[in-house]
């Protein structure tokens, strides 16, 4: 039986041990890029989703009166004009760029979060799991020291002769990891409540939804045993990402299986930003030495591939 004292020691070690900030800062860059893409992809349909009056599918006053409980929504305090609606999006895109490059990182992340929540409260009818995931991650990013490396803030600070400490407390990384694990665990539990995932037929139905199809994989989903294998594999990998990923020996194989699952879904189905944010977050589960290895190897691999491609081309 574990003693209370030992539990507290374990808790401290788990949440407050110091680690290198590289993984968190690389995640900030990737995540900031997705926030930016999200903002840019809203521009063309902006009037329809967030416009004023009959130009929008949900009028502003309807959306403000829709919720009875308190919600963060800057539209409540802004004048109901097209200009102010556009200002919200422009400010969101600007702060997402600041998050990506790490300029005034903390305040940019806070503003970006407030604007994202406001836009999601302004029009809930277009939100998918990718939007939910980005919002929940951005919440944790507000508290994380994501600026200490690979950022304009770090560069300016170093120039002043006051470099940041790059070994940080694990706390916010752990909370992000726990959030990710919970997403997988929750979706597994929801799926176990139904029967299509349990009897192995779910992938048959999802693969035949024409509206979701991107690239149709021929033959793979035409055999009952492959359908069942794919369904149960997906369910098991999701369960593993929520549980086995915490066991040292299983961590890398589980992450690799998760990566294949998300790439497979991204290739065959069209589901917004969800898969990309999930894949980006895998870096938070890597040890500092594994991140270092990736940093050394990836540029070499990319350079080699580019050289081969250019020599074949010319």
């Amino acid at each position, binding site marked *: 039986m574990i003693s209370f004292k030992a539990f507290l020691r374990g808790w401290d070690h788990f949440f*407050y041990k110091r680690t290198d900030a590289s993984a968190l800062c690389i995640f900030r860059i990737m995540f900031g890029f997705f926030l930016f893409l999200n903002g840019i992809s809203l521009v063309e349909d902006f009037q329809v989703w967030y416009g004023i009056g009959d130009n929008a599918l949900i009028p502003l006053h309807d959306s403000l009166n829709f919720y009875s409980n308190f919600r*963060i929504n800057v539209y409540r305090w802004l004048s109901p004009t097209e200009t102010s609606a556009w200002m919200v999006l422009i400010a969101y895109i600007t702060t997402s760029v600041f998050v990506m490059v790490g300029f005034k990182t903390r305040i940019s992340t806070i503003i970006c979060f407030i604007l994202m929540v406001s836009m999601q409260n302004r029009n809930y009818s277009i939100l998918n799991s990718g939007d939910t995931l980005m919002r929940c991650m951005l919440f944790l990013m507000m508290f994380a020291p994501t600026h200490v490396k690979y950022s304009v803030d770090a560069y300016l600070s170093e120039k002043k002769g006051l470099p940041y400490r790059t070994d940080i407390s694990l706390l916010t990384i752990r909370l992000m990891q726990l959030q990710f694990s919970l997403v997988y*665990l929750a979706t597994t539990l929801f799926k176990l409540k139904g029967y299509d995932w349990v009897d192995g037929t*779910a992938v048959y139905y999802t693969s035949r939804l024409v509206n979701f199809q991107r690239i149709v994989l021929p033959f793979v989903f*035409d055999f009952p045993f492959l359908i069942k294998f794919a369904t149960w594999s997906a369910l098991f990998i999701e369960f593993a990402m929520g549980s086995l990923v915490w066991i040292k020996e299983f961590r890398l194989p589980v992450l690799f299986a998760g990566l294949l699952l998300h790439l497979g879904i991204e290739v065959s189905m069209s589901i917004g930003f969800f898969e990309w944010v999930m894949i980006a977050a895998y870096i938070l589960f890597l040890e500092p030495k594994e991140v270092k290895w990736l940093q050394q190897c990836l540029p070499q691999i990319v350079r080699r591939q580019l050289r081969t491609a250019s020599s074949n081309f010319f």
Partner: protein
Amino acid sequence: MKRLTKYFLNTLILMYLGIIYFTGVPETNTLNSRVKQKAMNVAFAVGIWPSWSMFAPNPIKFDSKSFVEVTYKNGDIKEYDVEVEPKGILAPFRKARWMKYSQDNLRNPSQRALLNPAIQYFRKKYENKTNPIVSLQIKRKWAEVHPFSDQSIPSIYKTPRVQKNEVLITKKMED
């Protein structure tokens, strides 16, 4: 780190973990559902409300699309897809939003509040000064996927579908 700061941080960690757990996972008993409601209120206020039931508990078994049928004064009837077909590199992300609106929410009986504003929007979008709109209808067409069978399943290219229609709202326009 000071002991008091650590106690404070630990309390916040526990609160955060409690909120994301109770709001994120499905309810299993009465206590769980009571706590979930309270935790949900906090999650909405703070901006961390979840929605992790992707393709669960069962995936949908039909392809659904919403359409707008516009009847003009001269008797012309035109049908338009609610969704626009986005082009370009960001198309998948834009498409995901249109799909969510048109295929998931507009047709959903629990989202009836979306229908009247949609009527107003499409009235403005398709208005014709010389030939006014007489009535506007939003309807849904969906195709149910042939059920799975262990013996043989149809090819992914030739899966039979049962076509169905449903009128969601009809509005006659006043002069």
